[in-house]
């Protein structure tokens, strides 16, 4: 039905949405969508973990740990993500050993997709450290004091009191950063990762349908971000505290 419609659209109007009727183009596009989604999900989870770890170390008693976190945040926040990605793929990757690919050849230890995930996780993680720090600093010191007075250790206090409150405070900022992360994944195009933009560009360079694919691409990202916003919105809703405003 849909395939037939778009096929006719191409024949009658010259609007070539090949991804909707051409099995080969469709396959490439779906692979791109899957790769992008995969990078997004893994990088979002990893960046959240990095943010948590970073903010924990930033508040620790160890001077070294604090300096390391500061350095990490400054480095990844103050340099362009495309440069970071290139740095990992073209500089760091060449220092790593290669592994046998099972067919008598050698392949890199970390794939392009792997480097994209690493680079984007570190990039978004740096911002998450700062976002979580802002949230944690907004938790009233008196609430923390109450926990300390009850004999909570610093870790227990973080898990049961500080983070649940800080999360709620920093959710809007976190939303922004994660949406940014989803959009930043298109940079993986530059190192040949078969994500959405890469797949689209392959399709339009063979099917000569740049304008159509651009529209498909934009709509796809709108939908991807909409899914993320929906999930975050649900999360925010379930975490709403009766009678408490942040």
């Amino acid at each position, binding site marked *: 039905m849909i395939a037939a419609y778009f096929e006719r659209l191409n024949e009658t109007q010259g609007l070539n949405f090949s991804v909707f009727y051409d099995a080969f183009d469709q396959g490439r596009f779906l692979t791109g969508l899957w790769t992008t989604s995969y990078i997004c999900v893994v990088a979002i989870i990893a960046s959240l973990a990095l943010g948590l770890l970073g903010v924990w170390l930033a508040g620790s008693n160890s001077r070294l740990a604090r300096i390391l976190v500061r350095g990490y945040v400054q480095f990844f926040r103050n340099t362009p993500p495309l440069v970071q990605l290139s740095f990992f793929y073209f500089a760091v990757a060449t220092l790593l050993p290669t592994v046998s690919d099972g067919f008598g050849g050698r392949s890199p230890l970390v794939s392009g997709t792997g480097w994209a995930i690493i680079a984007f996780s570190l990039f978004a993680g740096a911002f998450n450290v700062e976002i979580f720090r802002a949230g944690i600093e907004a938790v009233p010191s*008196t609430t923390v*004091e109450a926990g300390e007075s*009850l*004999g909570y250790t610093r870790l227990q206090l973080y898990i*049961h009191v500080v983070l*649940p*409150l800080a999360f709620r405070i920093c959710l809007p900022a976190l939303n922004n950063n994660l949406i940014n992360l989803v959009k930043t994944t298109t940079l993986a195009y530059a190192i040949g990762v078969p994500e959405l933009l890469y797949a689209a560009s392959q399709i339009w360079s063979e099917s000569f349908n740049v304008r159509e694919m651009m529209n498909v691409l934009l709509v796809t990202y709108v939908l991807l971000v909409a899914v993320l916003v929906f999930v975050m919105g649900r999360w925010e809703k379930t975490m709403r*505290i*009766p009678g*408490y405003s942040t």
Partner: protein
Amino acid sequence: MASRHQLGEPVVVVAGVEKAFGALRVLKDVALTVRRGETVCIIGPSGSGKSTLLRCINALVPISRGSITVAGREVNDPALDKLALRRDVGIVFQQYNLFPHKNALQNVMMAPLHVLKQDKAEVEARARMLLAKVGLSDKLATYPGELSGGQQQRVAIARSLAMNPKVMLFDEVTAALDPETKKEVLVTIQDLAAEGMTCILVTHEMGFAREVADHVYFTDGGVIVEHGPPGDLFGAAREERTRAFLDKVL
């Protein structure tokens, strides 16, 4: 007024305590002893170091010099196990400081579960009992933001009691409450004291201090000006400064 119950061994002993924030000396050679089962009120003008003293007792604020022992444990010891100390000392704050993301029952249950690792069913039964004791059986599932100040403060008291402390500290717990809710909280504390809980209150409630305390300390400018049973202190203060203060507040 004479003591209404048998007093046991000293639970909190403060001796020669000095505390300075930079050049500001907020406690100067403070000494006091609180025995098991005793209710002690600390009164005095704002900024006289009363709250700081309480916060020194559970090591929220480190002291500069002197000694504080709680149940035989030296607070001014660099090797102090702060967590063990704080399990013995309950503290209730002026601003309640409940955990806003947990309901009343959970607030009371949290510390015994997380800190003492006690059995959940037992903790819950005890939390229900404590909330019933402070008159909040009907507010178990209510969040702090939906409770009145007096109700929040009573949850805070139950939360501290859930840890089975050896001594309870009350830091101007009724200062933010209106007269009616103030009464609920004071009655709760009075019941506790009557049951033999060791209580140290920093308070501006002179009527309460006179009625419930076994011993009253008057502080000003970081020193204990005078102390004694409430009958003596309120009836016949020896020091001019104490009389001047009491004249103003009574």
